């Protein structure tokens, strides 16, 4: 809790810093109008850590679904760049006739020192017997860990969908991510700061995941991959009506603007491995998808069956 407060204080300090960087002057109205679309602020975290009995469940009204319990989330710092390389929330003006956009950009994290750690207890709860008077079938699947997640220059843009006939929120998203390991420890989390904890004799892990824009020869590059772009290939989030009168949550990644290609990303995994004191170890080596080009994606989420 103390560290969380510290993080909040950092945010407050950064907000204050923005106002004290230059001597303030009054602006005439006419000049002020030109400032339109440049509003925003910068913020950052320091010593961020969240631990406790927080649980999330994604599931049905009968109690079934996927549950993440005892969530632990923390981030390490780049103390030399807390102020120079912050998160930035900005309102940006777009071209004539287009709505303004809200842009959230993440630190460039060029030294890779900003590393997120996540751990949770995974429960998988089957509710199929409940309707017939049975009980929930709860399976404790172990601990799910994301270790050393690094983001470099992430950017998320939001704006109202420009088509007045199709309401919703349009997104742009570009990412470059490295993940130390995605690990499942079926007997509990043990030491979550270690990729291979001696105290966790059983685990399934994908180590060294890298996602970025693809290079010309289809390797993971050093630039962020633009999965969606507000101007050329927006991602729309809204609801749509079904034939039976119900509504569905709906995601739509539009075709790229005529004449343009969808950006190509690349994904690699350094190693996939099983470690076990009862079933033995197995090393499945590395894996990669050199080129990932999503030209169109429409997802209509349905109610339970």
């Amino acid at each position, binding site marked *: 809790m103390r560290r969380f407060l510290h993080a909040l204080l950092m945010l407050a300090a950064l907000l204050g810093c923005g106002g004290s960087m230059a001597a303030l002057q009054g602006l005439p109205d006419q000049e*002020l109008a030109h*400032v*339109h679309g*440049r*509003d925003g602020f910068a913020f950052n975290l320091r010593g961020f850590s969240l631990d406790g009995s927080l649980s999330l469940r994604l*599931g049905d009204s009968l109690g079934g*679904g996927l549950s993440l319990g005892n969530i632990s989330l923390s981030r390490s710092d780049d103390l030399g760049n807390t102020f120079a390389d912050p998160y930035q929330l900005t*309102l940006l003006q777009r071209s004539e006739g287009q709505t*303004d956009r809200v842009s959230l950009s993440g630190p460039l994290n060029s030294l890779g020192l900003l590393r997120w750690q996540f751990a949770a207890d995974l429960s*998988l*709860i*089957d509710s199929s017997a409940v309707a017939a008077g049975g009980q929930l*079938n709860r399976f*404790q*699947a*172990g601990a799910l860990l994301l270790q050393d997640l690094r983001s470099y220059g992430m950017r998320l843009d*939001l*704006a109202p*969908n420009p088509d007045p*006939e199709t*309401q*919703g*929120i349009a997104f742009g998203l570009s990412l470059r991510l490295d993940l130390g390991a995605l690990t499942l420890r*079926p*007997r*509990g989390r043990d030491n979550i700061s270690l990729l291979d904890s001696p105290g966790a004799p*059983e*685990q*399934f892990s994908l180590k060294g995941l890298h996602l970025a824009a693809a290079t010309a020869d289809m390797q993971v590059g050093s630039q962020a991959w633009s999965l969606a772009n507000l101007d050329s290939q927006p991602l729309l989030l*809204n609801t*749509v009506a079904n034939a039976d009168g119900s*509504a569905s*949550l709906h995601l739509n990644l539009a*075709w790229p603007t*005529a*004449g*343009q*290609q969808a950006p190509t990303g690349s994904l690699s995994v350094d190693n*996939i491995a*099983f470690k*076990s004191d*009862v*079933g033995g170890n*197995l090393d*499945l*080596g*590395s*894996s990669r*998808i050199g*080129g990932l080009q*999503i*030209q*169109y*994606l429409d*997802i*209509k*989420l*349905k*109610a*339970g069956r």
Partner: protein
Amino acid sequence: MGALRLATSFLLGCGLVAKSWAQGVPLPDAQLARVWGQAMVEVSNTSVNGYDFSRITLNADLSLSANFSKIRLGEYPLATGLGNGSGADIDIARLQFGRSDLGDGARTVALSNPYLELVYRNGSDTSQREVIGMRLGFEGIQGSLGLSAQSISGSLAISDTQGHVLDSRLDPAGGKRWDGTACGPSACPFSLAAVGALQAGDANGPSRDFFLSILKAPVQFPTAVAGATAPDLAQAGLWLNWRDRLLAINPGSALPPNLPPTLPPLLKPGG
């Protein structure tokens, strides 16, 4: 002023200010309560043959146009005597979802109900619980694809329009790092590299048995879709299962193009 615009943008985006996307009708509390949590995620726990399966299904209909290239999954040396193939369990030069030369109907592939299934042994014993692996799959796939593969570990059956079937069950090595040129005493009708245009699903419905597994031991997965044939035993490593309603349109021909449209689509998103 900027803050006002920011707030307005959010409100417009959320549909709180402008007219609604459809003729909205208020829901009575009782009805609304039934809407909550009819979530898109469904969990199924089963125990079969000493294994504990937990399947997480996303109840969703997807339409996808995508191009994947240089796919190499599971790059590790096989045990001596098994042959190393091209050095990876799955080696696909090009996998395309959709094609752009047959009209708008073929531009996207319909995918339904993607799922992730975890496999454990001794699931109820907290000191002996062992994770065996997982699989990712779709309950249905229907549409035009393009495939050029060097080798695949898995259980595959691809028919052609002449009634020939390229079947990994005929591979003397059991389908591990198979390139579609070894079919036991029979001659393979075409190789995996020559598949080219591929049609998933037919007039009877979508293809129902696609999954990719990562396992440390062979596992007999349960059938994911009622009425579909049980899949073959999935082997250790990375393993692709796809046998149901697959047709190679013209083996040996070039991959079909899969380019974005040059004109804006007429159909509204989600329409």
